[in-house]
């Protein structure tokens, strides 16, 4: 039974890692903490719902629709909630992101209403039974897509010219500008990439978590925990911390207490931070804040 719990926790952990990645991408590139990222994930899922259910598109076309629409939303976010504030104190950027979060949440409520909605899975609702361990096909898809995204991002940043330009911009914008990199475009591209990740994450979580206007708050809370214990800004840390959190939550709810599962999970996370103040991978948090 414990294998079943660990496998289920891994699938949840993959979602945590995936939703945290877009948040970290923006943070690493422009140093902005984006509290609206959960709402971007929610919108990615809702746009998939609009395309697949309202417009009757097949899922692959709905995915493209969501990616295109989220591209525009990423650009919009950058142009209105980040770029004009980039030289202001960090608290202004944070407040702008909170404002965007409220706007997107209320926008979703007005467009899609308060009832929970579902996007069908690319692989259906089937269940695999491997030696008595049951595994929903959609969970297998989540693990595969997460692996693909994290390997893909490594290759993108390490092996492509545009990836290196993005990394150079993230490390030192002034130096990147002097090297002839169009920094503004790199910032726009960062927000677009984060919006694509949000779209993918939204598509993956909508069949199992369902879509509600408030789901973004839940997502950002989990993402923030993962980012902190993973090592603020560390991409490998996200994967380890996401899996750690996902498995811990399932095991605590199953074997210790379901009523205080979040309390116990938080205590475990605090204990981790006491032993490893910098998180699993990364700098000390105090140095980043």
């Amino acid at each position, binding site marked *: *039974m414990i294998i*079943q*719990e660990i496998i*289920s*926790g891994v699938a*949840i952990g993959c979602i945590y890692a995936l939703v945290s990645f877009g948040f970290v991408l923006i943070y690493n590139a422009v140093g902005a903490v984006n509290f609206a990222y959960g709402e971007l994930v929610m919108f990615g899922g809702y746009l998939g719902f609009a395309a697949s259910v309202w417009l009757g598109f097949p899922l692959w076309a709905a995915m493209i629709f969501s990616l295109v629409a989220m591209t525009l939303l990423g650009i919009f976010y950058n142009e209105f909630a980040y770029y004009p504030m980039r030289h202001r104190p960090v608290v202004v950027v944070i407040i702008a992101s909170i404002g965007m979060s409220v706007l997107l949440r209320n926008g979703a*409520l007005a467009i899609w*209403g*308060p*009832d*929970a*909605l*579902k996007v069908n899975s690319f692989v259906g*609702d089937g*269940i695999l*039974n491997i030696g008595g361990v*049951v595994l*929903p096909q959609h969970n297998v898809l989540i693990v595969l897509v997460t692996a693909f995204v994290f390997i893909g991002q490594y290759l993108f940043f390490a092996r492509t010219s545009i990836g290196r330009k993005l990394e150079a911009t993230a490390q030192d914008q002034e130096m990147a500008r002097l090297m002839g990199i169009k920094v503004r475009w790199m910032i726009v591209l960062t927000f677009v990439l984060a919006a694509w990740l949000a779209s993918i994450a939204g598509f993956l*979580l909508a069949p*199992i*978590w*369902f879509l*509600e206007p*408030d*789901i973004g*708050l*839940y997502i950002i809370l989990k993402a923030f925990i993962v980012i902190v214990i993973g090592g603020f800004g560390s991409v490998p840390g996200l994967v380890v911390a996401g899996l750690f959190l996902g498995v811990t*939550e*399932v*095991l*605590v*709810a*199953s*074997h210790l207490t*379901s*009523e205080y*599962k*979040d309390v116990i999970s938080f205590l475990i996370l605090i204990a981790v931070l006491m032993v490893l103040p910098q998180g699993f991978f990364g700098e000390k948090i105090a140095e980043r804040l």
Partner: protein
Amino acid sequence: MKHSGKVLGGAILALGLVLGCVSLSLADIQVGAIHSLTTGLAPLGQRQINSAILAAEEWNARGGINGKKIDLIVEDTADSTTMAMTALDRVLGKDVCAILGPIWSFQLFALFPEVKKEGVPLLSTSGTRALTQKNNPWYFRLYPHDGITKRAYTMFAVQELKAKRVAVMCVTTEYGKSGHELILETLKELGLEPVIVTWHNKDDKDMTGQLMSIKRANPDVIISQAHPADTAIILKQQRDLGIQVPHVASSAATMPHIHKLVGPAMDGVYVEAAALPNYDPDPKIQAWTKRYVKRFKTKPDSFAILYYDGANFVFSAIKAAGSNRAKIAKWLRENRFQGLAGQYVFDKEQNGAHFAIIVQYSWKDGRVVPRLVKKYDLNPK
């Protein structure tokens, strides 16, 4: 001429007074009906107001109440307490003798002070337990509260499904905690203790831990008390984890949008509710549903049929007691009424509906089909 003019004037005045009296005595009976007709809350409110309109039309077609027509004064409470207060003021301005109110407890709580001050009977279909525990003698509940429905579905699990090992899953909100107490209280009366109780947060997206601990406890039934989205996740994950145990769920699982989320995992699930107008085999309910659909081109829900019963109950009270508000309230307290969904009789707290039904859903041809399996009448009198 002067004299005859005075006589004529006097005659006209007298005629006017007489006609005035006649028109007063033949005046319509004003009954208020306030509910959410706009905003996102409208789907539920509109269906219930439809029921009040249908009841008033049927009474008027039969000659009204003691020869007087029922004038239903409808106002919109939208989705706020401010709008609810405005709607109340408007109907009170028309001197209504009773009010059919909104379902929303946040609006009802806001209306209570003025309703008490004005001394006007207010009836609604809200299930929130605390509404009838506020010592408001003018508020009458027409829907079974959780004390009724939780008792009914726990009894069903034990007595009908012959469960001996009951697992209980509850949400950590007030709704879940009060439901948990009621389920355990009923189990105790039936000589049982739950083999396991699990808790989850309203916003939790994964119930694997809770369901796996339930699987280890090896129950023969799961009873859950949860809100719509978490109900959907529980039911879906129970199926995904291959836990083949009957599930008796709270009323959120009757909502059509939940069926869309849960899909085939709804197959075999039992759910408590107050009524099931679209699928109840009772010929009277079927006939009413047909009339409703014909008149309003939409299907009624369980609240709508109870609202219809409530309208008929209050019209009967007016027929028997006249249009004096205090006398109507007294009549409502002292009499019982056989409605379509069940029999209504107000207890000390003025809860009028003490019945519940259990529905079982099956998955056929890609859609969820309900079947009424049990009716409970837990009338205290």
